[in-house]
């Protein structure tokens, strides 16, 4: 379920909200609340579309198809997480692709040119992701400019420096153990990359639900001023969120390295722009608010999975290639409208 701290920045306010929720809201885990949740809606859509695709094209449920779907979804979900952890602060990170590729290329460099063992190279890549994320965060809090502008600029800067340093050449000297991981099939059907994504999702859920740090991230996004008055070091939280975003983008980049067997500068397209759509679709469909303060890790996971499944299903149904984008756009619109209806229903019933 989504975690929302938009209205509980101060203890007094928290108490007030607690009292209010006790009087008006249904029990925390009521069936109604679950049925009306974003996540349940996404689950229904996933089952619905999977049934449609499987009926029209039985090959949709073939082992290869399911394996490929899981592998692709794993990366898309991770990209969604990378954006999600910045969106919760009310910000954006347009440089997720550029950071992910830079981290992956650095890992490739360490493995190929310096002969480093893959765990160290992976750690190095993730450190680069964190560092680039930190640069974003520091510039944003120091300048006070919106993250949209800053990350739009750093997207070009990070990508440009990476292309300059690598001369757009790929690194193929990747450890066979590492590349074997991306091509492995568990029970002929499950990609280990999907397991990585699930582990990260669990970690993020724990962070936001059970740790003070996670709550402080959300409080910062809900209302910066109130969070500051509550003693939260807002600027530090924003920087941490961007660092986390950089690390998650690095994980996504490294998953692609493992899957393709090489670190390639074009893995996220020109300037890393190919990652922007999956980066936004997952969190937005999943119920993470663009205004900040609310996160849904499960929603992002399901949203990204739905988009990946829809693309795969449409391709399988031989829908004209150019219609796939149209259908994806329609899905996004449909999901936003359904969410709007859901919200008004909840408000009318005083459930929120």
């Amino acid at each position: 379920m989504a975690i929302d701290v938009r209205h509980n920045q101060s203890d007094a306010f928290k108490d007030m909200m607690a009292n209010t929720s006790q009087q008006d809201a249904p029990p925390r885990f009521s069936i109604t609340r679950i049925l009306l949740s974003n996540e349940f809606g996404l689950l229904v859509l996933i089952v619905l579309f999977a049934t449609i695709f499987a009926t029209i094209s039985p090959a949709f449920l073939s082992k290869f198809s399911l394996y490929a779907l899981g592998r692709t979804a794993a990366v898309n979900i991770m990209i969604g997480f990378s954006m999600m952890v910045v969106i919760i602060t009310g910000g954006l990170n347009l440089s997720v692709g550029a950071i992910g590729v830079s981290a992956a290329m650095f890992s490739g460099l360490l493995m190929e040119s310096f002969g480093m063992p893959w765990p160290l190279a992976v750690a190095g890549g993730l450190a680069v992701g964190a560092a680039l994320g930190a640069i974003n965060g520091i510039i944003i809090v120091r300048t006070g400019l919106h993250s949209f502008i800053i990350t739009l600029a750093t997207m070009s800067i990070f990508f440009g420096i990476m292309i300059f340093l690598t001369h757009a050449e790929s690194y193929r000297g990747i450890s066979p153990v590492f590349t074997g991981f991306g091509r492995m099939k568990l029970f002929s059907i499950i990609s280990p990359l999907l397991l990585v994504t699930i582990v990260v999702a669990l970690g993020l859920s724990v962070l936001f639900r059970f740790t003070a740090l996670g709550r402080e991230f959300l409080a910062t996004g809900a209302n910066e001023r109130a969070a500051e008055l509550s003693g939260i070091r807002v600027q530090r939280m924003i920087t941490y969120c961007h660092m986390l975003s950089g690390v998650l983008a690095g994980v996504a980049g490294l998953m692609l390295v493992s899957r393709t067997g090489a670190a390639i500068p074009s893995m996220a397209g020109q300037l890393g722009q190919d990652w922007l759509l999956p980066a936004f679709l997952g969190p937005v469909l999943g119920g993470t608010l663009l205004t900040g303060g609310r996160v849904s890790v499960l929603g992002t996971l399901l949203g990204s999975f739905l988009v990946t499944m829809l693309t795969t299903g449409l391709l399988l149904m031989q829908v004209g290639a150019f219609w796939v984008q149209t259908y994806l756009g329609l899905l996004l619109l449909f999901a936003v409208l359904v969410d709007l209806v859901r919200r008004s229903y909840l408000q009318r019933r005083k459930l929120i």
Partner: protein
Amino acid sequence: MSLKRLITTLVAIGAIPTAALADPSSRIALIPGGPHPYFAAWEQAGADAAKEFNLGEAEYKVPQKWELGLQNQMLESLVTQGYNGFLIFPGDPVGTVAIANELADTGAPVIALAGCLKDPSDAQFCMGTDTGNSAYLGTKELLKELGSGAKIAHFTGFLVDPNTQLRIDAVERAAKEEGAEVIQVIADIDAPEPAEEKINAYLAAHASEVDGIITTAWVPAVVASSALRKIGDKRIKMVGIDHDEVVLQAIKDGFVHGTMLQNPYGQGYIGSYAADKLRTGCTVKADAPFKSNALTDKFIDSGTVFAGIDDVDNYVGSMQAITETLFATFESTYLDC
């Protein structure tokens, strides 16, 4: 006689036994990296090959965007749909190797078309334009017109495409050999918006300093041709690439000196034929006379030729001879059947 008619005739005369042996269960997919006018000829080439070689189908499937991930997803989907032969323009010469190997593992022949995969890969071979050579020959043609001491600008494709660096190097080499100087390279512009912006801005500021222009990607060739027409000064000589109508008309009107033609139809047609042969029992000859390029040692040059004002009306004919020669001897040269 059109290229299509020529090849039909060739097949009718010389390759009837080939058609008889072809397998209607062959389902060949021709997949570019994304939408681009260069690949449009593949659709007709596949359709013609399917008809003339009695293939089940040879379908042109375009990923909706230039995204490596989308191309991979489409390829995986095509396997699930039962396609059993693949002609692929690699979204990335290294990044596409893994999926190409997975396709080959299903028993489907994979041929890299118009662009190569980096060795080692399980692709049977690569058939395309020798991009470096095309850029080199194009620059030589330009400098024949301009003479030594000329100052030229080079407009080219995306830097993430390793072919771009090959083109840049080839143009530099040709210029050096002819005593000319490349005073500006503008890359990353094989899309309308950046090409319009950068080429127009450059010519607005520096047209007087430039004697010639070489373009080695489709969109920059079109945009530069239009820009020279707008400027109206025929002093600047240009050699473009490919056969866009804008470029061909600019050659006829004297705004562009010529263009380096490539052979996408021949690639799609012969590639479909080869994929079917490889699927139905033929193998690639161990001693096939492949060429080498920066990516692979199994390269077949599908041909490139310069077309100036005298050849532009018959540019299809200019490629026919190359396609005819390649097709007529393809099986005996490259395959063991």
